[in-house]
């Protein structure tokens, strides 16, 4: 029997087994997931355990695969927006923005996007970032037994979702951003509502910090679990809050500022050990910084159009399309052929909720991408989990997994 296990594991099992014990345990293989309450989305982990200790964890994602990249080849550039909504479904606005920026780069109109549109994009992105981190922290706390912070954070997240629903028309699948701007302007009186909610959210964050930060159970489950050194993190390609918790001083908004981020003032939080507790602290701080960014945007928001005035990209105004034949033809060309993007390739990346979210598009001059690749941070982070959870206990998988914040839709594309 032991021989078979050696075969399966591909390693000598003698040093793996804890022979010092009174009763040396045998290795055992158990499945965690695909539908396990602690597996965000659906992912299966085949664990080889020695008692409670994990010897090897084989992660098998892909249960939520929707062929995003292949589907994108058959959809016009506008039709891809609904697909991007479903990548990271707790912060869809950031996906929308990242994808739109890639197409704009190909079209060479990045610098011509109206300022108001850029501001609106940043506002909705930062709101999405807060919802993303709230989901992550709330869900992880709940999985560790702290149910109250989960309820408080989800209450606050709901406020933000309601606000995004007012802007875009849908609670989750916004499809709000368009190539060349945003679909619609912010509704009247939306910003004061947002600012009021931000004050309340700050209070919620304080409450959650009081409940979690020094709670012994929470600390014991989080601190020292899943630690990652800075070198390892760079080698494994960790970005975003997870990477920053390891001490990597990298934030796309800071190092490759896009949109209006060069005009904003904010801090990039980093930590040193890269364990789950640091990841949690970095996320909390990032939410506070997002609130700061939102307040600045609210005061600086300029007036103006929210869609570029470029007939190649923008649909004609409805009034024109209804009444003049030229606009009607343009409207039809736009719908039937899609936006004609000159051939070339472009990669743009934004700071997503989980890390560097990139879109690489190869265009061949038609209305549909020749190839559309998405660098999904969740997938990259997930690949580090087998290494992280080695030699941890089974129960540690829950915080490790929670703080990676693997989003099934994004990871499996």
């Amino acid at each position, binding site marked *: 029997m032991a021989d078979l296990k050696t075969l399966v594991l591909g390693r000598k099992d003698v040093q793996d087994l804890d022979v010092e014990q009174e009763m040396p345990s045998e290795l055992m293989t158990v499945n965690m997931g695909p539908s396990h309450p602690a597996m965000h989305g659906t992912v299966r982990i085949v664990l080889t355990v020695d008692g409670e200790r994990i010897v090897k964890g084989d992660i098998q994602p892909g249960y939520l695969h929707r062929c995003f990249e292949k589907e994108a080849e058959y959809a016009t550039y506008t039709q891809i927006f609904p697909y991007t909504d479903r990548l990271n479904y707790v912060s869809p606005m950031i996906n929308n923005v990242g994808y739109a920026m890639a197409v704009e780069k190909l079209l060479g109109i990045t610098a011509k996007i109206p300022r108001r549109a850029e501001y609106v994009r940043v506002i909705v992105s930062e709101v999405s970032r807060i919802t993303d981190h709230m989901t992550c922290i709330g869900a992880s706390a709940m999985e560790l037994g702290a149910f109250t912070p989960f309820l408080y954070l989800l209450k606050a997240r709901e406020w933000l979702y309601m606000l995004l629903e007012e802007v875009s028309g849908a609670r989750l699948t916004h499809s709000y951003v368009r190539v060349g701007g945003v679909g619609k302007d912010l509704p009247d009186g939306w910003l004061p509502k947002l600012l009021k909610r931000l004050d309340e959210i700050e209070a919620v964050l304080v*409450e959650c910090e009081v409940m979690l930060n020094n709670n012994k159970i929470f600390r014991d489950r989080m601190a020292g679990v899943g630690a990652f050194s800075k070198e390892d993190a760079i080698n494994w390609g960790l970005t975003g809050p997870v990477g920053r918790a390891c001490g990597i*001083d990298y934030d796309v908004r800071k190092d490759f500022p896009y949109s209006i981020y060069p005009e904003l003032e904010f801090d990039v*939080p980093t930590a040193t050990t890269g364990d789950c507790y640091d990841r949690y*602290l970095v996320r909390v701080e990032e939410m506070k910084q997002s609130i700061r960014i939102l307040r600045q945007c609210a005061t600086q928001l300029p007036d103006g159009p929210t869609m570029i005035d470029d007939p190649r990209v923008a649909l004609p105004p409805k009034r024109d399309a209804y009444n003049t034949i030229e606009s009607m033809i343009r*409207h039809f060309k736009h719908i039937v052929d899609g936006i004609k993007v000159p051939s070339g390739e472009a990669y743009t990346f934004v700071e997503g909720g989980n890390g560097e979210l990139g879109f690489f598009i190869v265009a061949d001059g038609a209305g549909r991408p020749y190839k559309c690749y998405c660098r999904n941070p969740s997938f990259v982070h997930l690949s580090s989990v087998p290494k992280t959870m080695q030699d941890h206990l089974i129960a540690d998988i829950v915080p490790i997994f929670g703080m990676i914040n693997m989003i099934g839709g994004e990871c499996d594309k």
Partner: protein
Amino acid sequence: MGAHATDHDDSETDGPKVLSVSPRNPRVRTIQIHRPAPQDASFLAATAKGLGVTLRHFFKNVLRGKDHNYIETVEYPEKKVDYPERFRGLHRLMHRDDGAVRCVACMCCPTVCPAHCITIVPAQTDDKGIEKFPAVFEIDELRCVVCGLCVEACPCDAIRMDTGEHAKPVEERHDAVMTKDALLELGARSTAVQGGEGAAWRERK
């Protein structure tokens, strides 16, 4: 001078430790988060503090009475939250002034629909000014991803999603297919300024 600067830094208690300042944007700093010391963690004190938070919520809930909207939970089937104005809900087909369907079966919406859930069979009308109308217009609400692209794509304001209702639950899959009649029933007279007057409408404006 230097000592003074450090004094000043120290006086800013609890200020984060700044590791570096971005060369691309001097207003963006990298900071080291404050990690509470391990000995700060405690069972009793922290639990009591946390309990304080929950108790405060409890008393706020209890003492503020029923009608105060401090309680966020909505008693759903009895009370409902209205959808916002822009909410993309069930589709509807708009009417002409005489109540006929406004759609001219131009096939824009089935073309732009990423879910391919709109089925239109066009037919001819006797009205020479209109020529085409949809004999069959069906939307499969189960396949629809509620993206709103069809509304954006319609060149004559014939389809809208502003009903403020979400798709109803159904028992059979085919019940989710909205027929032309059902869509028209939700519809109303369009207010779009439309007349096919060509460029002349600009002067009239």
